[in-house]
């Protein structure tokens, strides 16, 4: 993650990194628990993505501002407390905005604290870069995460309930593929997306230079 030549990335590349090359969901396989648990519908997926992006931006800003003051030994603990603060904020915010959404997402809002993607970004990027740079990268990562969740949520909602954003797509005769909104469906759909990306990579061997192989998957 911490490539020595990272300083030379332009702001646009820095931003695009999270959306494509290091997409947290599809390339790094980070933050899988919320990615699979709440993506039973497109709306849930977007809400979760937005909440995570908010926490990511807030904690990135603080971590980046404090990067020269935090002693190395206690940095992880500091990051976690910062992240937990923002998660508490978002938890109360969502409860205030939509109780329905709050109940659908359940404990997974609070579990944003332990989303490894956020801690990973704090450690690998925000703690080494100035606020503007870190924020750009965090925004890209957050959007990439949201896109990933949406890709999972929309497919699961279409197959599992025959709807998208609650709008029926196939009429009343559609027989929903219920397993897709149940837990196994989460694994299957993410597995299928990874298959698609693998196939894409293998199909265009010349393009492997621009698209990194999924070597990050062992980071959990």
């Amino acid at each position, binding site marked *: 993650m911490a490539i020595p030549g990272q300083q030379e990335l332009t702001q646009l590349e820095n931003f695009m990194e999270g959306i494509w090359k290091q997409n947290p969901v599809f390339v790094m*396989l*980070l933050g*899988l*628990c*919320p990615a*699979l*648990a709440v993506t039973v519908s497109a709306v849930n997926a977007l809400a979760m993505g937005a909440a995570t992006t908010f926490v990511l931006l807030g904690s990135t800003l603080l971590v980046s501002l404090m990067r020269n003051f935090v002693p190395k030994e206690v940095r*992880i*603990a500091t990051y*976690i*407390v910062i992240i*937990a*603060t923002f*998660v*508490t904020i978002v*938890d*109360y915010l969502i409860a205030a905005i939509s109780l329905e959404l709050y109940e659908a997402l359940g*404990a997974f809002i*609070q*579990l944003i*604290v*332990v*989303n*490894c993607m956020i*801690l990973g970004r704090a450690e690998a990027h925000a703690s080494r870069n100035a606020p503007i740079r870190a924020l750009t990268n965090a925004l890209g990562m957050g959007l990439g995460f949201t896109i990933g969740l949406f890709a999972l949520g929309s497919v699961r909602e279409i197959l599992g309930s025959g709807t998208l954003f609650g709008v029926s797509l196939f009429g009343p005769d559609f027989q929903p593929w219920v*397993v897709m909104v*149940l*837990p*196994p*469906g*989460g*694994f*299957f759909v*993410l*597995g*299928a997306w*990874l*298959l698609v990306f*693998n*196939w894409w990579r*293998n199909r265009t061997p010349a393009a492997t230079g621009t698209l990194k192989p*999924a070597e990050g*998957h*062992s*980071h*959990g």
Partner: protein
Amino acid sequence: MAEASLGQIFLATVLANNFVLAMFLGLCPFVGVSGKLNTAAPMGAATTFVMLVASLCAYGLNYLVTTFELEFLRLISYIVVIASAVQLVEMVLKKYSPALFRALGIYLPLITTNCAILGVALFQTAREYSFLQALVFAIAAGVGFTLALVLMAGLRERLNLATVPNVVQGAALSLMLAGLLSLVFMGFAGLGSGA
């Protein structure tokens, strides 16, 4: 919910609501450490221990924050306690079993960010479990986590011997496998129902 018997809670949490396969908690170690059987089992044991400690602490903390009406501090205090518990496990392992310590590597400190641990603490609070219920819940969650990890490790050890097309290698295959396992565990749905 609070009147569910201990046996019910145990069965439901280990099988029907398995933390990994039905609730999607603790997927990072599930994907990362399930390559070999002899690291999967100790990892499960370490996680179970941390869960137990976290559950006990969370029970006490929840009592404190509710008494003093500081609910907004709940999450922060939970995560700090869990981080300290993990630190403790790390030190004990480093002293008594350096080989295992090295084998678990980066995943040991990452137990802190294992959502299963915080999940135990949060769910027991949300379901208003009594002290004893919370204890059983934490042990069952740990056993369920270990079970899923060990099953997956066994399967993946076998898979290493099989020849598969390039396209499905790596994470894609693991996830499909996890999906099948999860499908199997769905067969337990309703067991110890009510939880």
